[in-house]
């Protein structure tokens, strides 16, 4: 199935035959490169261009022989891009009209690429799927791939943040496991800090990361933005309360005011007991297993985040204490089709293949990335990993950050103002007022687009066939 990108191809072919012999081969090569949108190679296989990041890009190659065996007419060319440059590369590829057919993207980037009209809506294709298949995804994660009722990508693997902690240090402080509420969490940390002395701390919260203050605020019920995400909403009491609570962790000396570039070796410091608790994601299950010394290996575990429970809840929260899990962020990576790709059908076949529970389970074994489909968690390798179980519980309690392209910039501003407040250069109220001012400025374009009736994230445009 040779696709013809434009009618002039034949004319060029004629010109080609008239060229003098020495130029012809080179010109033919250039032409072939130029035309290869979704072209058949000599052996008539369609080549799907697939961009994946970091170690995922490396490991996914192991799944592909099976795919190519099942679909003899399809070949996959994987382009591996480093995570640090991935966002820029995708934007540049879009600007230069050189998008791959299928690509991996962080699920917080989806609103941005939808606003660019770079991704193909999947609604029509998903209608052919059985209902149960979509329900198999963790709902909080699937939600981040949907905008205004349309699905633009499918989750590949999931990522959320929870506690990694030293069981021995927590036990020494008198707790058998990490507490399930904010109040008790602070009590436990205060005790740990008292035992640890002035040089050590209860918890490490790198001040240049925005995730924990946002998680605390979302748990507390803050909306972050207001009026259809037109303005910042950070001076609102619930956000202020969560933010003040976050700052108090530094004021009380429970967490050191350092950024993550100042931690020379995280694993060494964790092993030394420089801090007992750390908030991190699934990638550190493998890293902790590899990098912590053998003596510390029996003394660490993972736990879901504590919940914010009002002092005298009325009615009391349902279920026992075990069911109290505080929400965390719905992170992870998704797979999307490029809207301008010439072989979206072939790319979709590959996406469907990678979404199969068996492939998800195999991908977990290769990378340690947690599967987005719950049925893949029945795989013995994953069911037998005790550190992953806290993630499984946490993944049922997820909240998403605002689904707008400006979010990363807003989060960046949040870190900036939080850092100033932690260093006591400004008061809580000054920091939040400045944050609202900055965020309102960032959202100015969005307000302008909405006021003109333009959808910043245009939904359900027909595909450019």
């Amino acid at each position, binding site marked *: 199935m040779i696709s013809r990108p434009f009618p002039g191809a034949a004319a060029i072919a004629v010109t080609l035959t008239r060229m003098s012999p020495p130029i012809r081969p080179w010109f033919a090569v250039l032409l072939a490169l130029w035309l290869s949108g979704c072209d058949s190679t000599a052996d008539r296989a369609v080549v799907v261009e697939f961009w994946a990041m970091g170690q995922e890009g490396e490991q996914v190659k192991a799944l592909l022989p099976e795919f190519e065996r099942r679909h003899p007419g399809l070949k996959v060319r994987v382009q591996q891009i480093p995570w640090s440059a991935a*966002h*820029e590369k995708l*934007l540049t590829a*879009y*600007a230069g009209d050189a998008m791959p057919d299928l690509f991996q993207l962080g699920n917080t980037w989806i609103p*941005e690429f939808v*606003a*660019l*009209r*770079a991704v193909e809506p999947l609604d029509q294709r998903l209608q052919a799927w059985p209902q149960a298949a979509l329900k198999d995804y963790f709902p909080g994660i699937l939600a981040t791939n949907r905008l205004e009722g349309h699905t633009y990508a499918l989750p590949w693997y999931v990522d959320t943040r929870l506690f990694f902690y030293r069981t021995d240090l927590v036990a020494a402080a008198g707790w058998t496991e990490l507490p399930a509420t904010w109040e008790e969490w602070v009590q436990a940390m205060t005790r740990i800090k008292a035992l640890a002395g002035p040089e050590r701390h209860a918890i490490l919260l790198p001040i*240049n990361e925005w995730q924990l203050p946002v998680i605390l605020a979302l748990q507390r019920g803050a909306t972050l933005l207001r009026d259809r995400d037109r303005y910042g909403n950070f001076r609102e009491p619930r956000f202020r309360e969560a933010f003040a609570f976050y700052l108090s962790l530094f004021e009380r000396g429970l967490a050191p005011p350092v*950024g993550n*570039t*100042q931690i*020379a070796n995280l694993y060494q410091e964790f092993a030394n007991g420089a801090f007992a608790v750390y908030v991190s994601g699934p990638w550190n299950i493998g890293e902790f297993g590899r990098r912590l010394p053998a003596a510390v290996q029996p003394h660490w575990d993972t736990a879901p985040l504590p919940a914010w429970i009002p002092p005298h809840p009325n009615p009391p929260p349902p279920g026992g204490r075990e069911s109290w899990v505080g929400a965390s962020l719905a992170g992870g990576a998704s797979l999307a089709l490029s809207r301008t790709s010439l072989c979206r059908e072939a790319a979709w076949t590959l996406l469907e293949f990678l979404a199969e529970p068996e492939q998800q389970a195999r991908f977990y074994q290769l990378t340690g990335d947690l599967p987005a489909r719950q049925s893949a968690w029945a795989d013995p390798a994953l069911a037998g990993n005790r550190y992953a179980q806290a993630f499984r519980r946490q993944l049922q309690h997820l909240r998403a950050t605002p689904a707008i*392209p400006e979010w*990363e*910039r807003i989060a960046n501003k949040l870190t900036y103002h939080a*850092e100033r407040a932690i*260093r006591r250069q400004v008061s809580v109220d000054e920091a939040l007022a400045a944050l609202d001012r900055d965020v309102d*400025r960032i959202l100015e*374009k969005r307000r*302008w*687009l909405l006021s003109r009736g*333009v959808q*910043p994230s245009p939904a359900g445009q027909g595909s450019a066939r």
Partner: protein
Amino acid sequence: MKGSERHAALSAGIFLAPALLLIAVFFFLPVLAALLLSFSDFDIYALGDLNRLRFVGFNNYLQLLQSPLFWTALGNTFYFVLVGGPLSVGVSLGAALLVNARLTRFPGFFRAAFFLPVVTTLVAVAVVWRYLYHPRYGLLNYGLSLLGIEPIDWLGDPNWAMPAIILMAVWKSFGFNMIIFIAGLQNIPTTLYEAARIDGASAWRQFRYITLPLLGPTFLFVALMTMIGYFQVFAEPYVMTQGGPANRTLSVVLLMYEEGFRWWNMGYASAAAFVLFVLILAGTVLQLKLQKSR
């Protein structure tokens, strides 16, 4: 006569045309486009659909001048230029005098050795220097500890990060200026020194009244080039500190890069670029004026 003149002009034009065309297409056109961009709010929305582009007049410039982050970046850049620039010129002049001295043995070896940092890639150098600067295992702090000085968190301490970057930048770049100074020194006729020696001039007086004045044009060139290069400091903080800690090593070009390629605020980033251009232009004019008034 007239005909042959026209003929000469025509052939000159033909010979110049390829170069001029390339400069026009690859230099003037992009600069013009960037100038236009700086008056627009080109961003991620406009990239998706040009109907979502607005021309905002001087808004980007106004916002830039009101942004505390820009002033922080500008302050850091001036710190880098005013401390690093003279230091770099001084070190390269000193090295040139040493290498060029009659008593120095193996001048070729030293010339090559001092020039080596210039030709090595910055990223590789930065990785090595990050080890040297490491607060606990770094060679620099080890040396200081032998002198009984407490370890310094070179790249993590807001007050030390910029000096650390300047030190590395000077080490990396002084070799280039040194070569130019050596060329300048070798152009000074030895007869002048001989005459001065006969008159009983000390080494310092020879340097003050022969070397320095005759190095004038070289000095101006080196100072200008160093200033322009140092105003555009980007790679060192980008690789070593990413602008941190607490934005103390954020330079104007790094800010421009972040705004442009991280947040895709092309209009705002272009405005930052033109403000920097105006500053460099002003600095150059000032130096030329100073030189002339002597």
